[in-house]
């Protein structure tokens, strides 16, 4: 659709800075949870995954040019997460329906 080049070099550097910041955040959060403020595991994993998905969004949008790609390419990229979601929902749904885990899990 759009011609390439609408993402400037400056933006790439800013995105890189953001990614480094988020990486620092994920390591910092880990040590704070371990040493200072113990959080329930489900919350700790949630924070780590939230940071990871934010980093992914930054990489996909700017580094992988999805921001200036065609609608169809954007749809394809979004679809991969839909397929992933389907796989996780069906598999985990099956496990939970059979009473997984056998012993107590992080939610109980």
């Amino acid at each position: 659709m759009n011609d390439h080049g609408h993402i400037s070099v400056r933006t790439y550097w800013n995105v890189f800075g953001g990614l480094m910041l988020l990486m620092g955040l994920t390591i910092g959060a880990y040590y704070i949870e371990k040493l200072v403020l113990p959080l329930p595991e489900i919350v700790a994993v949630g924070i780590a995954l939230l940071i990871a998905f934010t980093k992914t969004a930054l990489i996909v949008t700017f580094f992988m040019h999805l921001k200036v790609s065609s609608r169809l390419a954007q749809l394809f990229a979004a679809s991969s997460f839909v397929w992933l979601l389907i796989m996780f929902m069906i598999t985990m749904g099956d496990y939970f329906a059979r009473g997984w885990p056998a012993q107590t899990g992080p939610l109980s």
Partner: protein
Amino acid sequence: MATTSHEHGHNPALQHHFDTPEQQREAATLGMWAFLTTEIMLFGGIFMAYAVYRWAYHEVWALAATHLNTPLAAINTVVLLVSSLTVALGVHAAASGKQRQVVLLLLVTILLGAAFLGIKVTEYSEKFAHCAGYANPITWISGGATLEEAECLVPGQQFHFPVGHGAEEASSLPNIQRNAQLFYLLYFCATGLHAIHMIVGISIMAVLAWMAARGRFSSEYYTPVEIGGLYWHLIDIIWVFLFPLFYLV
């Protein structure tokens, strides 16, 4: 039909079954995204297994992960993020027709990729040296210092997770050897598959750098650099998830 937009000089890179260079680029990008979707599902299977077993054995997971080298993995994260930047800048340079800059940035990317693999090899060889009974890979070769406490974190017959010091905590966990082995099996599968992708990625970057050096790209045609870059960024994204899930449990 094919002539409508290009009466003034035919682009040599334009294949005859495409009407315009834009259409050709669009098709290549779309095809790459379709491939990346299959890659995400490939790694997704490993993440799926990880989710199932961490849910069940989260105490073992927390214990097992303490034997991984988190500082080295953090350095590797930085290395990969920088390499993603150099690739992004390389694609940008290709789009601007700066051939020399493309070659330079891709070579830096290859170097960073090799550094990542070098650190990965250090991590792996340490685990294998422990299985052989030595403190680290160097003493393994030179026949130096041996390991005081038996440890083998490579899945297999010899697998032995050391429960020495945190004995009270560890002994209360049923099947700790089996479940710790599951963690390390997933660790080696996930990071091993990722390392294979790095090797492929480095090869692609080498071919692209060579093509760029031969002047095969221009601001009108740089599709290989663009989709090669997409592949590299995907490898980076996979690591963005592997790092917190294995090293920061």
